[in-house]
């Protein structure tokens, strides 16, 4: 059972009673980033106060210790995702992970006439790398239509996929609408056509239990900072055989086995092949602490709790009679809405004036806007430390949304 009040004791952002606009902060932008518990901060601090050294670079104990901790992080992520530690590549985040697949694999193997399937609900980081790779290779981008609620269905994938499809790249949970895609079935259909299934897990890995073997996805990308870890660290999971076929996106120290003056180079095996240069070691150690923290809370409990928050939020917002909700039916803890007759950005400023942090705009999913038929929306997103009181504060503000210009005058 998730007890958000008890959990908040672990988070300095709550313990310190951070204020915004002289009001107690109501943080509802967790799809953007999340707060950090003490254990993560301590892991980062310890690295600089008692464990500093580089990895793979020395014969002394401190270096060995860091190598072991990095290995332990890969093992913990292996437990989180049910994969082998050798299939865990550290990157700077979801964007870097997807770029690595797109340029390291896609650019190498895609050819003129091949197809890459995406959806209209994808985040820019799962669209633009593919646009670029399509431009480089002559492959074609196609969009799997969403159903009337904005959901990606197996049927619609079946209708769109062809023998020419080589990559299907979709978010497991979309960042604006918050539907959970049926990835296991989608992966199966994708594989039936001989294509690869690439999963953007930025919004799913922090919020639900994921078994990459059960889903049978080929690649999975996620960020540390959205699951209470530090910024600038993320992961690419890839099936080992596929990682082995993937080119390094960056080359340099720490990823080669040997090289000579004739240009002969041999690279290390994955995952080290993709980790050129000194890694974000504080980030890796902080990520490990975050992953352990999440697993101790229990991903299934987190998921159940957020689903209940989502239902509560939809009820409360509907009760105001002043909200237009675009994703009432979706499962994840994301509510995308507008206040009636108030432009999204003006609504978000008004929420700011009441101490409430929400995202407004197009949420980096710029092609979804044509689907929703609005220019911009407000997004409230929850995590396991979100309380019903946070949602009540949001609903109360929405109720008084017509007074949005108060933000500048009160």
């Amino acid at each position, binding site marked *: 059972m998730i007890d958000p009040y008890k959990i908040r004791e672990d988070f300095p952002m709550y313990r310190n009673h951070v204020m915004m*606009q002289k009001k107690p902060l109501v943080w509802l932008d967790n799809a953007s980033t999340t707060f950090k518990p003490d254990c993560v901060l301590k892991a980062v601090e310890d690295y600089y106060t008692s464990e500093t050294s580089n990895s793979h670079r020395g014969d002394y104990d401190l270096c060995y210790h860091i190598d072991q901790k990095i290995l332990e992080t890969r093992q913990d992520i292996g437990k989180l995702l049910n994969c082998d530690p050798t299939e865990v590549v550290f990157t700077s985040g979801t964007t870097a992970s997807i770029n690595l697949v797109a340029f390291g694999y896609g650019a190498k193997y895609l050819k003129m006439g091949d197809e890459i399937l995406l959806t209209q609900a994808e985040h820019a980081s799962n669209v633009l790398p593919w646009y670029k790779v399509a431009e480089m290779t002559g492959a074609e981008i196609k969009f799997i239509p969403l159903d009337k609620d904005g959901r990606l269905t197996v049927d619609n994938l079946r209708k769109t996929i062809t023998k020419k499809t080589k990559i299907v790249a979709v978010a497991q949970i979309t960042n604006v609408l918050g539907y959970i895609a049926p990835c296991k079935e989608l992966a199966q259909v994708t594989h039936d056509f001989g294509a690869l299934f690439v999963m953007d897990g930025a919004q799913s890995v922090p919020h639900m239990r994921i078994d990459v073997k059960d889903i049978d996805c080929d690649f999975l990308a996620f960020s540390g900072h959205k699951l209470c870890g530090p910024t600038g660290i993320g992961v690419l999971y890839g099936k080992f055989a596929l990682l082995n076929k993937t080119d390094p996106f960056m080359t340099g120290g720490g990823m080669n086995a040997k090289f000579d003056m004739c240009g002969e180079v041999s690279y290390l095996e994955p995952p080290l092949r993709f980790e050129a240069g000194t890694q974000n070691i504080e980030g890796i150690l902080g990520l490990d602490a975050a992953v352990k923290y999440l697993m101790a809370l229990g991903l299934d409990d987190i998921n159940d709790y957020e689903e209940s928050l989502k239902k509560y939020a939809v009820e409360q917002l509907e009760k105001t009679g002043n909200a237009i909700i675009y994703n009432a039916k979706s499962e994840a803890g994301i509510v995308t809405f507008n206040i009636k007759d108030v*432009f*999204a*950005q*003006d609504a978000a*400023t008004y929420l*700011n*004036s009441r101490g409430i942090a929400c995202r407004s*705009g*197009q949420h980096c999913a710029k092609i979804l806007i044509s689907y929703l038929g609005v*220019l*911009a929306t407000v997004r409230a997103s929850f995590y396991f430390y979100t309380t019903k009181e946070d949602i009540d504060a949001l609903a109360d503000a929405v109720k008084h949304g017509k007074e*949005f*210009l108060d*933000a*500048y*005058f009160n």
Partner: protein
Amino acid sequence: MIREIIMDHYSSPHHKGKPNNLKGYLSLHTDSVNCIDDFEVYLKADKGVVTDAKWEGIACTISSASTDILCDRVIGEKFADAQNIIAQYLLMIDEKPYDASVLDEALVFMNTGKQAARIHCATMGWSAMKELLEKEEKAK
């Protein structure tokens, strides 16, 4: 009262729309990373006097109203006066000493600094107009 001025310029802007005939107009595109604002600002001048100012595009309440009030304020002004009005407005937004006597309705944006994330919305039309005036002057 202040709220009414902003809402009036937002819901029934006086100068929104692309000029029917672009001849004689200079234009500049302006947009924002943080907000959805994405619009053009148009300037027409004759003998060192602003004869028309317009804007067209997508904009939030703050950028719509501030740009529309800007157009009201600069039409009919000599370049130097128009530039001074813009300079005083930008000083006001920056919460520095400014000359309130030239700003008229634009004074409604006095408190924009309370919502720091929106300063860009309140100034993007004005900054674009400033650039257009400089361009027009150089062209002469």
